């Protein structure tokens, strides 16, 4: 199948100023004279004493050399196993990401991501036959620092037996007001080719344009707020060549409009809690020309435990209204008809946890971490029925990520 949506670049997005400066702090740590100590540092734990010391130096660096305000993403290598199991779908596989800077001006990155999909979802088992396929995505990126700006270029390609997606993007982040505000702009273009099993003559294009505008603002020494907006325009073959709609119970090929424009805005606030914790809350509102309206709410908490553990937990809720051309069973044949449950009225709830353990650590030089993340999700559809039972459809899903990270 199957996707009517492309993979965009995967490479690290522009980070708020405070986050990028962490790299400066880490680098500066080894050069810190032992006599440099903030007065309040004695009241903090070992972790924050270290942070306070590098923070003091960081302050000096930023105050005296504004050109240091933006910094490249840190060097790192990740090897991950990922898995999604739910609704008759099993999708898993490996992924790797490597990032290395050159001369502290340019950072190069590359990734490879494999999805091995075994699909026996309700769409497939009620209208076709279960299948297996593999998708491989590869991408490269380049980040470049120029004065107070970070410029990022990425390109990626995703291949599966009946879907090809290529994309390229450019993002720019710029600090203002002494580093209090970071403004980011981004643009991506995607070129997809939709094909069909057992029909070599079938090939349809789909193009995508994405425009991003965001800002992150430091509110206080403990609180950050960010607003990200994104507009996406699609044109071409935006439906599935396999999926069917229903008219009075009879299956007919689905027909989606050939264009779609969507907009989304996310407001997020993050705060430091206590000596070693952080809390965040965010809300995204989404609307598009297919008449879908959606809201996403999320709250989460992160906490260092002992010297080597970092634990995270979150709750996420999503709900949406259906597209104007969606129906579980149309009463009359219409120009556009879809029974894609992704376009139906539904909601999902997710409960997630993540734990990272620092296996080896040499502060300011390198670290190797193991991380395990899990999310339980429940999807409930309000106007999509399981035609085998006649009841509204719902399912549970389990999402797992296991990965090793080396930073150096």
């Amino acid at each position, binding site marked *: 199948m199957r996707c009517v*949506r492309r993979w965009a670049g995967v490479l690290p997005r522009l*980070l708020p100023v405070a986050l990028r400066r962490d790299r400066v702090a880490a680098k500066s740590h080894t050069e810190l004279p032992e006599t440099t100590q903030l007065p309040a540092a004695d009241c903090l734990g070992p972790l924050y004493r270290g*942070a306070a010391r590098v923070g003091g130096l960081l*302050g000096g660096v930023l105050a005296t050399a504004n050109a240091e305000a933006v910094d490249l993403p840190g060097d790192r290598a990740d090897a991950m196993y990922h898995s999604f199991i739910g609704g008759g779908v099993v999708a898993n596989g490996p992924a790797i990401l490597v990032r290395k800077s050159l001369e502290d001006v340019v950072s190069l990155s590359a990734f490879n*991501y494999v999805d091995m999909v075994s699909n026996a979802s309700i769409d497939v088992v009620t209208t076709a036959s279960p299948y297996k396929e593999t998708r491989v995505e590869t991408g490269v990126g380049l980040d470049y620092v120029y004065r107070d700006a970070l410029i990022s270029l990425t390109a990626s390609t*995703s291949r599966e037996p009946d879907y090809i997606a290529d994309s390229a993007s450019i993002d720019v982040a710029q600090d203002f007001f002494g580093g209090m505000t970071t403004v980011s702009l981004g643009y991506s273009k995607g070129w997809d080719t939709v094909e069909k099993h057992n029909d070599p003559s079938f090939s349809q294009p789909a193009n995508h344009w994405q425009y991003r*505008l965001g800002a992150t603002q430091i509110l206080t020494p403990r609180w950050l707020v960010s607003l*990200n907006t994104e507009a996406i325009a699609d044109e071409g073959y935006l439906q599935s060549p396999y999926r069917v709609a229903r008219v009075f119970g009879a299956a007919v090929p689905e027909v989606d409009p050939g264009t779609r424009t969507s907009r989304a805005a*996310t407001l997020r606030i*993050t705060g430091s809690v206590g000596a070693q914790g952080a809390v965040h809350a965010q809300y995204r509102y989404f609307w598009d020309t297919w008449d879908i309206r959606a809201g996403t709410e999320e709250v989460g908490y992160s906490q260092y435990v002992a010297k080597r553990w970092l634990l995270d937990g979150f709750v996420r809720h999503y709900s949406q209204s259906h597209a104007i051309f969606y129906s579980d069973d149309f009463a009359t044949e219409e120009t556009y008809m879809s029974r894609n449950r992704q376009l139906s009225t539904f909601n999902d709830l997710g409960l997630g946890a993540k734990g990272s353990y620092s296996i080896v650590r040499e502060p300011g030089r390198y670290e190797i971490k193991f991380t395990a993340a899990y999310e339980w999700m429940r999807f409930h559809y309000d106007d999509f029925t399981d035609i085998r039972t006649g009841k509204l459809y719902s399912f549970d899903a389990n999402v797992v990520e296991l990965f090793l990270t080396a930073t150096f």
Partner: protein
Amino acid sequence: MKLHRIISLSLLSALLLGGCGIEPWVKPYERERLADPIMQSSRDALADKHHEHVYDVREGARGATGIQGGGCGCN
């Protein structure tokens, strides 16, 4: 066109205001907690990409997450 205008105005305003010399009310040496990795919205790019992919292929909404995702594979 409207979007281009908004982006252009935002960029122009930011550039003009950038030269106004507004005094930062949080000094650089007060930002140590903000620089901690736990304050980041995305600490692990690969894991966040996978999660974003899970959402993108099952939910109608998309974008403005700060993470580029998308995808396939699969309803």
